[in-house]
């Protein structure tokens, strides 16, 4: 996505080096790394707390120091427990997400592209959506037992609604004018779906999947807190019962890491299909890349 030859971009390239030369070079190389800026805040906050703890400014009985949490994580990892718990949680989210996203996509596509079906089905789905998903838990346990099936059903329920809603509304919002171009070329319904509707909704679809994934992680915790013998949610409950705040925080950190990693993977999978997007965020990003290239030269 290099902006080739546009006058604005050329001017930006020319202007960049003189503007940045005033800063120390190493700081710039550091800040230029895609992860650096994102890590700055958590690292800074953790360091500050660690420092306060070492100086005896805080009582660390309820909020352990970062080094303590890291040590707990390390111990869990060395004993093999961490891998077991992370794997259990990840597999539940994966299964629930797959089921919820697939059914949400299918239903959303149907109601989004067929007005008659939307009038028939959507009110019911919206009514179901209004029920707090946790209200289903007793029923799922009665129907599916207390083991994996009820947990995955709960996660799938959580994932279904944002995906359904996102797909349905983005279908309804596809630019009529682009559909008309397809009509002029006499596309069949299937071709219209494949060549215009699906590519048009893709950016919104990725957004819907991301919110679905986020809810998947929310519901896996709920499911695991309500009764599990392994999983990060189990670590939380176990930590509470045994009075081990470091274990609770270790589980929370693990949640943050795998949640972020899953989200990152989802974006990475769709990124090649979205290179065409013309958005504010992308324009800023390519300007940054161009600036860096200008400096390297």
């Amino acid at each position, binding site marked *: *996505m290099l*902006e*080739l030859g*546009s006058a604005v971009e050329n001017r930006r390239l020319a202007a960049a080096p003189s503007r940045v030369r005033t800063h120390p070079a190493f700081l710039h190389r550091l800040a230029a790394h895609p992860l650096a800026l994102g890590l700055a805040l958590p690292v800074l906050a953790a360091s500050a707390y660690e420092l306060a703890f070492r100086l005896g400014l805080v009582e660390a009985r309820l909020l352990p120091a970062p080094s303590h949490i890291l040590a707990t994580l390390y111990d869990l990892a060395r004993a093999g427990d961490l891998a077991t718990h992370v794997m259990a949680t990840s597999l539940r989210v994966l299964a629930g997400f797959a089921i919820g996203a697939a059914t949400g996509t299918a239903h959303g596509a149907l109601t989004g592209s067929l007005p008659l079906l939307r009038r028939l089905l959507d009110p019911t789905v919206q009514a179901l959506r209004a029920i707090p998903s946790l209200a289903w838990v007793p029923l799922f346990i009665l129907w599916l037992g207390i083991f994996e099936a009820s947990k995955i059903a709960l996660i799938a329920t959580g994932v279904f609604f944002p995906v359904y809603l996102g797909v349905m509304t983005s279908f309804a919002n596809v630019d009529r*004018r*682009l559909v*008309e*171009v397809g*009509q*002029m*070329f*006499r596309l069949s319904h299937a*071709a219209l779906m494949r*060549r*215009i509707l699906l*590519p*048009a909704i*893709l950016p919104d679809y990725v957004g819907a999947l991301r919110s679905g994934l986020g809810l998947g992680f929310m519901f896996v915790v709920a499911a695991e807190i309500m009764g599990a013998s392994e999983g990060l949610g189990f670590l939380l409950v176990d930590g509470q019962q045994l009075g081990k705040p470091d274990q609770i925080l270790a589980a929370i950190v693990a949640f943050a890491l795998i949640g972020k990693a899953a989200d990152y993977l989802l974006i990475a999978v769709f990124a090649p299909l979205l*290179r*065409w*997007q*013309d958005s504010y965020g992308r324009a800023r990003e390519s300007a940054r890349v161009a600036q860096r290239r200008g400096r390297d030269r």
Partner: protein
Amino acid sequence: MLILDRLAKTYDGGVAALGEVSLRIDAGEIVAVIGGSGCGKTTLLRLVAGLEHASSGSITLDGEAIRAPHPAIGFVFQEPRLFPWLTVAENVGFGLAHLPAAQRRKIVETALARVALDAYHDRWPRELSGGQAQRVALSRALAAEPKVLLLDEPFSALDALTRANLHEHLLLLWQAYRPTLLLVTHDVEEAVKLADRVIVLQPRPGRLFTAFVIDLPRPRDLLSAAFTQAKGAVLDALAAATGPVRIAG
């Protein structure tokens, strides 16, 4: 030959957009339709495109009745309407999916070269200027080699210089593909510069007011006395068709 026979359109709400327009257009002819707002210019074009259905009357192209989009009829809209997820070349080849890839590639390359955009083959639509995007849209419509190309104020959003440039491109494309052009515009100079015939519509409901045959040689000299005179005549007719200007209050 494209024949519109007593073509009329009344919308569901009872609004008569077009009342009984008849028109015969020869193959390869350039016809400009001009008129103020509310005279049904765009409705006329959308009926011929098959995007809307006539309330009464008929459209025939070389004896074949037109009721739905037809492969021999192309459309260039007011906006370029390029697919943002396809490259420039993929946009131009959009209507050629039924052809083998090698043949499609050849047609696309020729079409892009004809609008001087061969260097933009792999670019995204977002990287194009307004004039470039509309050239790609012209290319996309003409790559399918329609017998009739409908143009709905395609240059109205462009600045004067770009518009003049697009006029040249359109005339060059017309010489290359020789389609019948039916151009809707509100720009009198554009109509007289491009068309063999200028049709003036009157509003509410839209119907034929008068028509002018412009038999000036091409390329047309916009400063010549003959051109100025033709333009003046069309302007007068347009003013008469639209009625006197009333200032409210």
